[in-house]
């Protein structure tokens, strides 16, 4: 029995964290709200962070070595997704690395480097227009492999997450049942990890602010009303993280309960991210409510991912079916 990550896994996480600190500071997230494609590279499609991740091999991490990838498992990349959440990376990271690249690599070897970008949706597809390959889980699970896909764009509360519905694509193939299932649970694991990272960052940001901000002659972080809200967020994070890591292990090990474990992780992280967002905003007060302050960039990503691919209640119902209904 050992519940922890290997030195290699932690080193990989640290490398990605360092990369994101350099390539994806908050200014990049903010810029993505108003640039052409909502991604990290400014006006051009595919950003600086994206290509740097590609150069590191991360974008093909789950692609078999035989196809040019790193041949890693969900357990090896779960911490990377958490880091991209912490950075609020405006890229289809989960959609590409966890979902799309393994499905598309046979047709598009460029997914390994990120020269070809894959995205995925169920049914709302983020960064669909700027992607090269699109996976749609619902309705009619399909992978659109060519350039003829047509979209209806819709607006998300998260300005970077350029959403669309896939309307039509002739150069496409249906997903097999197995591909669909794998894609769905891997994607949910990735979102759970990102929600965890988003929660950590919202908490850190708020701790930093409340230590500095003075009112009534004291740092507001010294008041119990602030302390206890943030302590509750910290408790929530503490008891969400192991569910995420266990789910990654279960998927990697192809455990029979893997899907239920992912649902547990997604339900818990969706709830804690919403709690973190609410507490962070309340403890910030008016400054958190202003567009110029960064908090809302994280908060809105959290809101979006908490509902995507099944919200907390949906995933809890999956758990309920597994544990409550007599088979």
């Amino acid at each position, binding site marked *: 029995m050992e519940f922890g990550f290997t030195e290699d896994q932690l080193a990989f996480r640290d490398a990605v964290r360092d990369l994101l600190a350099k390539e994806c500071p908050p200014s990049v997230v903010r810029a993505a709200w108003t640039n052409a494609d909502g991604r990290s590279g400014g006006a051009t499609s595919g950003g600086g962070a994206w290509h740097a991740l590609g150069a590191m091999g991360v974008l093909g991490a789950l692609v078999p070595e035989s196809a040019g990838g790193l041949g890693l498992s969900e357990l090896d990349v779960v911490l990377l997704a958490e880091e991209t959440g912490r950075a609020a990376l405006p890229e289809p990271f989960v959609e590409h690395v966890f979902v799309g690249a393994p499905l598309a690599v046979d047709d598009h070897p460029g997914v390994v480097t990120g020269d070809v970008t894959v995205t995925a949706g169920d049914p709302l597809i983020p960064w669909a227009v700027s992607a090269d390959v699109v996976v749609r889980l619902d309705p009619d699970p399909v992978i659109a492999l060519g350039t003829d896909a047509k979209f209806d764009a819709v*607006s998300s509360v998260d300005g970077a*997450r350029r959403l669309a519905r896939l309307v039509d694509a002739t150069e496409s193939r249906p997903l097999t049942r197995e591909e669909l299932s794998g894609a769905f649970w891997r994607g949910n694991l990735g979102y759970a990890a990102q929600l965890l990272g988003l929660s950590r960052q919202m908490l850190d940001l708020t701790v930093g602010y409340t230590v500095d901000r003075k009112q009534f002659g004291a740092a507001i972080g010294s*008041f119990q009303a602030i302390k206890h809200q943030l302590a509750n967020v910290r408790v929530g994070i503490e008891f969400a993280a192991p569910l995420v890591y266990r789910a990654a292990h279960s998927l990697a090990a192809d455990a029979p309960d893997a899907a239920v474990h992912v649902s547990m992780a997604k339900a818990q992280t969706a709830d804690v991210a919403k709690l973190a967002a609410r507490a962070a905003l309340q403890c910030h007060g*008016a400054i958190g*409510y202003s567009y110029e302050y960064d908090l809302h960039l994280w908060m809105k990503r959290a809101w979006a991912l908490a509902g995507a691919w099944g919200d907390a*209640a949906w995933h809890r119902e999956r758990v309920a079916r597994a544990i409550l209904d007599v088979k």
Partner: protein
Amino acid sequence: MDLTWSPAEQEFRADVAGWLQANVPSEPLPSGDTAAGFALHLEWERKLFDARWAVVSWPEEYGGRSASLWEWLIFEEEYYRAGAPQRVTQNGIFLLAPTIFEFGTPEQQDRYLPTMASGEESWCQGWSEPDAGSDLAGIRSTATRDDAAGGWRLNGQKTWTTRGAFCTHLFGLFRTDPSAERHRGLTYFLVPLDTVGVTVRGFGRLDGDEGFAEVFFEDALVTDDLVLGGIDQGWSVAMATTGSERGLTLRSPGRFMATAERLVALYRERGPDAVDGSLRGRVAQAYIDSEAYRLQTLQTVTRVTGGDPPGVESSLTKVFWSELDVSLHEIALDLLGFEAELESPWMKGFEFALSGPIYAGTNEIQRNVIAERVLGLPRK
């Protein structure tokens, strides 16, 4: 106890509802917290004013109908039920006007009230400063006597000024006695925003609208007739205003009843197919809470009409309505499931609702007030 409306009140309601039905724009106006939307909202305000619906509780001479608190409640119920536009003049009408009625000179009342009611002049609130948010007593902006110029020189900065970038005037507190501490030595000023030395910079809110402004003062001269109440009396004058903000006049039950009705409609559409078995009970609870808020208001109005002024209990009300508003929208978003993240009135309303527990005294401050002034727990 009598929970029926009198024939006169029923007639008043019919008048309001009839006029609104005939006049409320069929398409919602763009947000009043944008420059373009604000202008369109002012047109609507003018229309309200011309029909004498802008300030129903004010005396006739200033454009009102001398409506009772009961009639005001009825007006608000019908206003929200009709889905009529947001009142972009509300900071003036609901926060400043009561103060002018109480502390203003006759000249000030005649000068400012009619133009406020018509929307010809629009008012924003200059309370908060970068270092004075929850702790308003920490205000640092100053007003220094300039006898030569015959007035006061304003210096400093206000911020989080709602719709400040679109308004013509600001009301706020400035420190006239620099040696006084905290709540003392502040004075309440009325400031035209086109005064030389005043600079307004709009900035965005959470929901993307440019609803906030910073206002900078550099030796801006305001004359003596722009002082509201006495010199160094600003805190008590302002408290009367914040009393209004937190009290009866701002958050009418009609707003939450209308939201609850929309939530019920959404549930009827989406709820029966929802996976989440808790939604039905949560919708019912939110509806019960909006009823509770309405009934508690009836109780308060009965008391106030009987001569008992609203007191610190308004902190109870603030905590309740602000959390109810968040809850109503959260439930709606949960009903929307994965579509919750899409642009919609519910998401926009949710973002707005999140400001409720923050502004006009955070709910943390309100809970302190409840504990100390309602329950009698020790300050420290």
